[in-house]
């Protein structure tokens, strides 16, 4: 058994930022365990630019953004095991992992940071009629084929879902010579950034069909085509609107789910909306000494925020390791009236620093107010020109606001039209 102060599970931007922050705070024995052959996480395959505008003040590609953190990790004596898959975390923080050269290994830790990222919703999560021919895959899988393996998975493409990964792949496949016939979006709006709709679809004349879905796939061994149809307000296909489109590839870009198999096994409580752990303002789960950050905690659209969140978790883990994080009175946060969820879900009212509550809305609001209240008192109210489900928002809670709260208080964030 190896003895460490901090074990970080996952070497994407979240894991690296948490480890680096903990090191900066003085934690000595740190190890990062990463399943892939290199550090960097999903960013290694995101070769488009648009990363780092907030954090570095310049526009980088995914590998460049990750590269800056990889360099920093390499400059420290933080231990890194790549090609190493974590299998289990026990209640007393023993992390079991396996790799080809060393076989089964156990790492005893004072604190653990969960940074396993997220995965894409697979086809099984959708109900599309038809056989299961080759040529149907998630947009992220196609992204890996094209950008890492240098291999084009098809020539005539239909994309279901207009999330950013789907939009980015529409452009990527087009640039490599494929014909992207249409992007179908079930909802009446796209969850992707406007910039991506313009630069990934409009630039290439790729149509975006809103309120439209794939109802059937055709072909036996290889996909030969799909049937698409419009949907009504209840998102049900409207009979008579079916249309056949010939294609050899169907890319699914229908959402991301935090990767929480390990968290569940160790008994970490999950939030029903985010599908990530319930955490306090230092991103500590309800399991003492186990922290979570990045996409495993909540799906982020900007990696810059992943870095910010992971530094908070790294600091929290350091405090825990040095015995500085003890006791306190925790109250819950709650999103209502259009606010779908809030992270962190718990806040220590004895906290002495400003903290941010991150949240997402469930629909588009224009000119609405974000109101924070507690025990009937309004703590803050700010007008926002636009709020959209695709963009994570935040409100700041100051120690002064926390002063008058009691153990039965609840911090509420709501949208007022």
């Amino acid at each position: 058994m190896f003895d460490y102060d901090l074990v970080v599970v996952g070497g994407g931007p979240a894991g690296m930022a948490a480890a680096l922050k903990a090191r900066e705070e003085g934690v000595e024995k740190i190890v990062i365990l990463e399943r892939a052959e290199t550090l960097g996480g999903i960013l290694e395959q995101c070769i488009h630019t648009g990363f780092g505008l907030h954090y570095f003040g310049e526009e980088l590609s995914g590998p460049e953004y990750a590269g800056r953190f990889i360099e920093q990790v390499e400059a420290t004596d933080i231990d890194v095991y790549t090609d190493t898959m974590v299998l289990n975390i026990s209640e007393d923080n023993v992390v079991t992992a396996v790799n080809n050269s060393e076989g089964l290994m156990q790492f005893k830790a004072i604190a653990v940071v969960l940074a396993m990222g997220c995965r894409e919703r697979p086809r099984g999560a959708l109900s599309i009629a038809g056989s299961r021919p080759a040529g149907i895959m998630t947009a992220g899988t196609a992204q890996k084929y094209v950008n890492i393996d240098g291999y084009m998975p098809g020539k005539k493409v239909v994309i279901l879902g207009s999330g950013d990964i789907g939009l980015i792949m529409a452009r990527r496949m087009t640039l490599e010579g494929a014909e992207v016939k249409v992007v179908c979006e079930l909802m009446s709006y796209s969850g992707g950034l406007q910039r991506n709709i313009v630069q990934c679809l409009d630039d290439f004349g790729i149509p975006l069909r809103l309120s439209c879905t794939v109802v059937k796939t055709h072909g036996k061994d290889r996909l030969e085509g799909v049937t698409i149809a419009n949907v009504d307000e209840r998102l049900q296909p409207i009979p008579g609107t079916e249309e056949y489109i010939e294609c050899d590839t169907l890319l699914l870009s229908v959402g991301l789910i935090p990767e929480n198999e390990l968290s569940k096994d160790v008994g970490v409580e999950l939030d029903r909306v985010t599908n990530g752990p319930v955490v306090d303002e230092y991103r500590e789960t309800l399991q003492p000494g186990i922290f979570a950050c990045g996409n495993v905690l909540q799906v982020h659209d900007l990696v810059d925020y992943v870095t910010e969140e992971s530094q908070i978790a790294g600091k929290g883990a350091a405090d825990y390791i040095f015995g500085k994080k003890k006791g306190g009175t925790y109250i819950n946060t709650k999103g209502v009236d259009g606010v779908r969820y809030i992270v962190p879900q718990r806040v220590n009212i004895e906290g002495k620093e400003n903290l941010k509550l991150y949240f997402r809305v469930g629909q588009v609001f224009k000119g609405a107010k974000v109101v924070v209240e507690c025990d009937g008192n309004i703590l803050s109210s700010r007008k926002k020109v636009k709020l959209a489900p695709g963009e994570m928002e935040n409100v700041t809670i100051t120690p002064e606001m926390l002063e008058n709260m009691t153990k039965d208080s609840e911090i509420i964030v709501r949208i007022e039209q």
Partner: protein
Amino acid sequence: MKKSLICVACPLGCPIEIEMENGEVISVTGNTCKRGDAYARTEITNPMRSLTTSVKVEGGVHPVVPVKSSAPIPKGKMFECMGVINQTSVKAPVKIGDVVIENILGLGVDIVATNCDSGK
């Protein structure tokens, strides 16, 4: 002549109307801020785009390495640049920032590597 577009300079996405005469911009309306005005003018007269793609690497850990244009290129030149990039290959090792193609199509822009490949 009136043209409309959506500003993408920030997530707000203001709908902008541009009045043109003989290829000259007469007025820009609908934008909420100055950036929208600037965006609309370049977008209508000379749209520019960053290009990101990958290039073959010989003897690398992976068969391709990602690259980007060192500055935005004219939107209409994207496919022509792709043609040149797809004819090119580099030899491992490759480092972030290595120039893969200098001054592509004489546009004054380089194609540079955005990841490293230490080679097999």
